[in-house]
């Protein structure tokens, strides 16, 4: 049976509606509905290893605000987002923190760090 998926491409504002079908080609899928080749790249990444940047906040003590914004320095696999949030929710930092400061190193062995996204 043919395995088929519908996606909206987010590479640019066009929002092409892509259809992926599993086939015997080297990349494993055929992509239709795209207006440029970026659509194919997006669809394949999205099917094989979708990733997202995680942005959130952690508790900070001794600052004028009670939350410090944080982010992953690179996108992490989509399936790890909620695990990442669990780590973030358990973290408390003490002011001063500098922008870009690493708060958690090497999340889940991905090599991605959690960093402060402002100085506080």
């Amino acid at each position, binding site marked *: 049976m043919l395995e088929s998926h519908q996606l909206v491409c987010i590479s640019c504002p066009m929002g092409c509606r892509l259809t992926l079908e599993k086939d015997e080609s080297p990349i494993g899928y055929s992509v239709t509905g795209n207006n440029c080749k970026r659509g194919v790249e997006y669809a394949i990444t999205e099917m094989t290893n979708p990733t997202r940047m995680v942005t959130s906040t952690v508790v900070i003590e001794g600052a004028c605000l009670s939350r410090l*914004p944080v982010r992953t320095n690179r996108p992490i696999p989509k399936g790890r987002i909620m695990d990442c949030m669990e780590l973030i929710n358990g973290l408390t930092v003490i002011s001063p923190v500098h922008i870009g400061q690493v708060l958690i190193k090497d999340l889940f062995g991905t090599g991605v760090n959690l960093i402060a996204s402002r100085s506080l």
Partner: protein
Amino acid sequence: MRHYEIVVIGGGPAGLAAAIEAHRNGAKSALIIERDRELGGILQQCIHNGFGLHVFKEELTGPEYAERFIHELKDMEIDYMLDTMVLELTSERRLKVMNSHEGYFEIEAEAVILAMGCRERTRGAIAIPGTRPAGVMNAGTAQRYMNMEGYMVGKRVVILGSGDIGLIMARRMSLEGAEVLAVAEVMPFSGGLTRNIVQCLDDYGIPLYLSHTVTEIKGRNRVEAVVIAQVDENLRPVPGTEKEYRCDTLLLSVGLIPENELTRGAGIEIDPKTNGPCVNEAMETSIPGVFACGNVVHVHDLVDWVTAESCRAGKYAAAYVRRTLKQDSEGFVTQAGNGIAYIVPHRVRIENVDEELTLMMRVRKVFHKAEMVIRVNGVEIRRVRKNHMAPGEMEHVSLKLAELQDFDIATVSVEVEEGGR
């Protein structure tokens, strides 16, 4: 009385860029007046990524984008006052100002730059029927509570409006463990960027109901349920299509309004379409020496465009102070033709434009495969092909000075033609 060459009202992205650029262009004294406790404006609560793709060629979060400008500003001799409110601006560019440690005082400026940003439309502005319980709040307000103050605003949430703030908050609340039940949008298309629908709704399995609105809010002390219904082509609810969601929170993301109380008070001409001041090529308002930039002029979807526009305002304000901004002619007018909601700037004195004139505009509806037709004095000079345009995404048309030089221009118009060649 205190005197500055340039006073900027508002220390958000527009005010920061305008002050920095005015300083770079020779302003000897500049002051930013900010009513919050810190600089950066709304960027400080926008902790998601996606800022700076055009200006810095990288994807930053809001606070990161702000911090770059704040750093630059602090290295320059630009003054700023925090926790300080401008009560009134006069047409002679005198500011009536107040804060808690100096009380009331006045400041005189040779040029003023308005950079007060915008405010969210509220429940009152869209007249939702039902009771008045706690738990109905604007998406941007909720964003500030969550991201800066550390309060969780609700556990079961319905969102009205699919503007970017609403979409971003749908993801934010999901990440923090809330259940976002639905996003309702009264228009047949989303007001937000497609990438936000994918990353903020689809990723979390949140349904988006287009052509739907909230018809009732239930609950005495706290929101207990929200009813949404489909609307017809006249945006009237269709009986029998109601869906009720048990929830404790309703977030509203139903549009932004430029904050122009000071502008109106000074007697500056306002464009009823943008709700912001009418401006010329220098981002100068109807009062000479008073400039405006960013969301106070028209609501932007990308901060990068706010920065670009504000740099122009800062540069021209510095030129005004140096007496190098040419003020003799009235200039030509820009006209929004079919399919275009508005164009900024409203007037252009071509003698002040170097190299290129950028027109910013929004289309009225979603277009697929259309052409933007640019006409000078009614004569077509260029067509720009567009595969996709939507009201949620600002359009730019850049005209080279060389394209305009041979004309004695009265009007420049832009119109959308569907289909095209």
